């Protein structure tokens, strides 16, 4: 297995491809079924946000494996419109598309580490890590 692999998100079914790769890597790293489901769901949220708001982008997975810790890192990158108010977007229930507004805050809770960068007109970059326990 490659230490890093990426999936391009262009159409809705690419979300499924990203999810499957994320789950497969999580399984190989030894995550349990609950964490596998958490990772697959987080991938689904980030990939769908790319598809909905930026039209296209990429999800990359990277295995972290050193003496201190082991884990799976996912990075979602797009060059879409960006998010004007990040703290607002991170609030439960905030949505601009009539959704539940649970995606971003949900990913933060599903994963152990979460980092978001966004620039209006430049795009959005979200990095999230789950550690193997």
């Amino acid at each position, binding site marked *: 297995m490659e230490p890093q692999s990426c999936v391009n998100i262009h159409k809705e079914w690419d979300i499924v491809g990203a*999810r499957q790769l994320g789950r497969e890597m999580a399984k190989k790293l030894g995550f349990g079924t609950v964490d596998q489901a958490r990772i*697959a769901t987080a991938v689904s949220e980030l990939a*769908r946000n790319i598809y909905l708001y930026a039209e296209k982008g990429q999800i990359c997975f990277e295995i972290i494996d050193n003496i201190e810790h082991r884990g799976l890192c996912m990075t979602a990158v797009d060059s879409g419109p960006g998010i004007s108010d990040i703290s607002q977007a991170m609030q439960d229930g905030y949505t601009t598309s009539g959704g*539940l507004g649970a995606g971003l805050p949900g990913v933060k*809770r*599903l994963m152990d580490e979460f980092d978001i960068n966004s620039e209006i007109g430049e795009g959005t970059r979200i990095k999230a890590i789950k550690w193997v326990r």
Partner: protein
Amino acid sequence: MDSKFKQLVIDNSDSIVQKWMEEIGSLKSGNYTATISDELYEGTNREFVNVIFTSIRNQGSTKAVEDFSEKIINLGWPLSYITDGLQVFRRVSTEYLLTQSDEMDSTYFSNVLTSVDNWVEPLIRELVNEYSGSWEHILSLQRVALQELSAPLIPVMEGITIMPLIGTIDTERAKLIMENLLEGAIKHNSEVVLIDITGVPVVDTMVAHHIIQAAEAVRLIGSTCILVGIRPEIAQTIVNLGIDLSNFPTKSSLKKGFTKALEITGRHVVDIEVKENNIEQLIKSIQGE
């Protein structure tokens, strides 16, 4: 000029076919067709070259072309088999025509190329169109079949209907679920509708949102919707996402959901013990005496 070349190629089809067969045969090893038996490969090649020559002889014989591309699809061979075959034919017949003449000026050369292109190109177009057309046809049939499977409703008993969902849910399918659910609940006059998500691999916010909306709509037409088959890991992720399902009934298994549905419709399951007792007594009485 063209008809002269054509006659030359047709008259000498034996040596051209032989050369073509050799070249195509050498493509086999280490290629996409490596696992195909030699007899089948050779037989199909022979058919292929016949199609090519039929088409050169009387332009417009589409039936043979149609049949052949359909055969290639049924065999599961890739499109490159067709394009490779025609490329090789182009090369072999060009080479043959060039060796048949002493004139080697550029006009002759370009005449040969133009002629061969004129024979091969319509054939490439036709075969490729046929091939991809058949694929599109198969694909659209499968799409219909899949759609029929994607949100089925089973009226299990008076007033109780089950919708078992298996596989990934995309937006198109989510809409279909909603439509079928409402239509079915009304048609079957269902008091209770059970949505079974045991087979859904991931429940993300989009799926949850659509299920919540569907349940809400079912409630508006006066029925109850119970979400069943929530696997433990799915329950955890739903909680992590912060999705509130407290407003509508959920059960971990279809069995529990069904019992609940019976309760709502004023029924319950009774074991037919009486009968078994009778049988036991009967056995005893036979053994006893």
